[in-house]
């Protein structure tokens, strides 16, 4: 059920997405829960997701995310009126509960652990990426998030939703499917640190054609946009070491 092109959304509410925009989601639309404490980033990610034909709920903290998912009140997520979440995309560095802590809580929950979680971070730190992937994150995106990042996620989500519906709910089925789909998904070939962002700037779209393989040992593309955004899932060991690693910020572990 490939869905391509942009479905234009009629805006029902204001553009500021601080709480949840709840409407019953009985359809095939992919529903993404976006978690980010930055208002600017929430606005951007919301738009990126909507333009990629996703339904979006954006919240500003891990706590609110858990509330939305029904975890904090000790209800099972299944009681939640069909507000099914198909993907959670969360910032890593947030005050209070970090994205990593949110990830752990979700993976510890029997009802929610099936939901793929993607981590976003402005810091390209290998240890952080590893930790997140080990904890069960499906992917790790280096900010700023681009349309190509979201489009890539969208592809494996769509496939995934169908699989999850058919699967017996076992975690392994889910993971295997992801691994398969990751082989055909396009991944940017390498990572560079956020601090080495492009110095050549031009008003036209930089060409950054994603490579069809998940091999992450290719050199950076020679085009003027040297910073591809994300790693593939499950392959931290084959990452190119980032040219410059930023120290872990003090705002989160």
């Amino acid at each position, binding site marked *: 059920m490939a869905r391509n092109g942009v479905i234009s959304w009629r805006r029902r509410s204001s553009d500021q997405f601080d709480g949840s925009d709840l409407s019953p989601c009985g359809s095939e639309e992919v529903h993404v829960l976006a978690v980010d404490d930055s208002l*600017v980033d929430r606005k951007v990610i919301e*738009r990126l997701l909507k333009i990629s034909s996703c339904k979006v709920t954006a919240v500003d903290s891990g706590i609110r995310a858990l509330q939305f998912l029904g975890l904090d009140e000790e209800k099972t997520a299944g009681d939640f009126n069909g507000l099914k979440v198909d993907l959670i995309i969360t910032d890593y560095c947030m005050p209070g509960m970090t994205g990593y802590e949110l990830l752990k809580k979700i993976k510890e929950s029997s009802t929610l652990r099936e939901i793929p979680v993607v981590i976003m971070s*402005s810091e390209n730190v290998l240890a952080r990426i590893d930790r997140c992937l080990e904890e069960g994150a499906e992917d790790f995106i280096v*900010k700023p998030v681009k349309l190509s990042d979201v489009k890539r996620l969208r592809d494996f989500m769509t496939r995934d939703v169908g699989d999850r519906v058919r699967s017996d709910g076992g975690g392994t089925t889910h993971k295997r499917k992801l691994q398969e789909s990751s082989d055909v998904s396009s991944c940017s070939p390498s990572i560079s640190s*956020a601090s080495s*962002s492009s110095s050549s*700037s031009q*008003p036209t779209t930089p060409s950054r054609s994603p490579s069809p393989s998940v091999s992450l040992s290719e050199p950076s593309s020679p085009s003027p946009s040297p910073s591809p955004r994300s790693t593939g899932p499950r392959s931290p060991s084959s990452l190119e070491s980032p040219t410059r690693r930023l120290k872990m910020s003090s705002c989160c572990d």
Partner: protein
Amino acid sequence: MDVAQLKRQLFEYTTLLFHEGFLDEQFTQLQQLQDENNPDFVVEVVSLFFDDSERLLNELAKALDQQNTDFKKVDAHVHQLKGSSSSIGAQRVQRVCITFRNYCQDKNVEGCLKCLQQVKHEYSLVKNKLETLFTLEKQILAAGGSAPM
């Protein structure tokens, strides 16, 4: 000025901003997210950035004015500013933030204060330029031109 002239002016201005490093490819990304159903997307995001930045710059001034500088707090604010400037493509602001964070990690008050001045300066530059850009766009629309981006 007719629409064609205005459009050329906008194009040249935008190109200049990219060449001078005020904006980077992330700004182009945002422009691509704008369409006839969301014609004000870029302006809206940038306005959020302005509000957020002004708040953070105030917080930074306060934090650096304290007797015992809380560098963790300063760093947290700079981190936020770095993030939002990166998200809209305000490259020069983002770059100063990187230097700023290094001074925070070194607990260097002098360095931090210098960076604060620099980041305020870069912020006000990019703010002016973006406002000029938006004004040009509005002129084009007012002159009957279509959405210029």
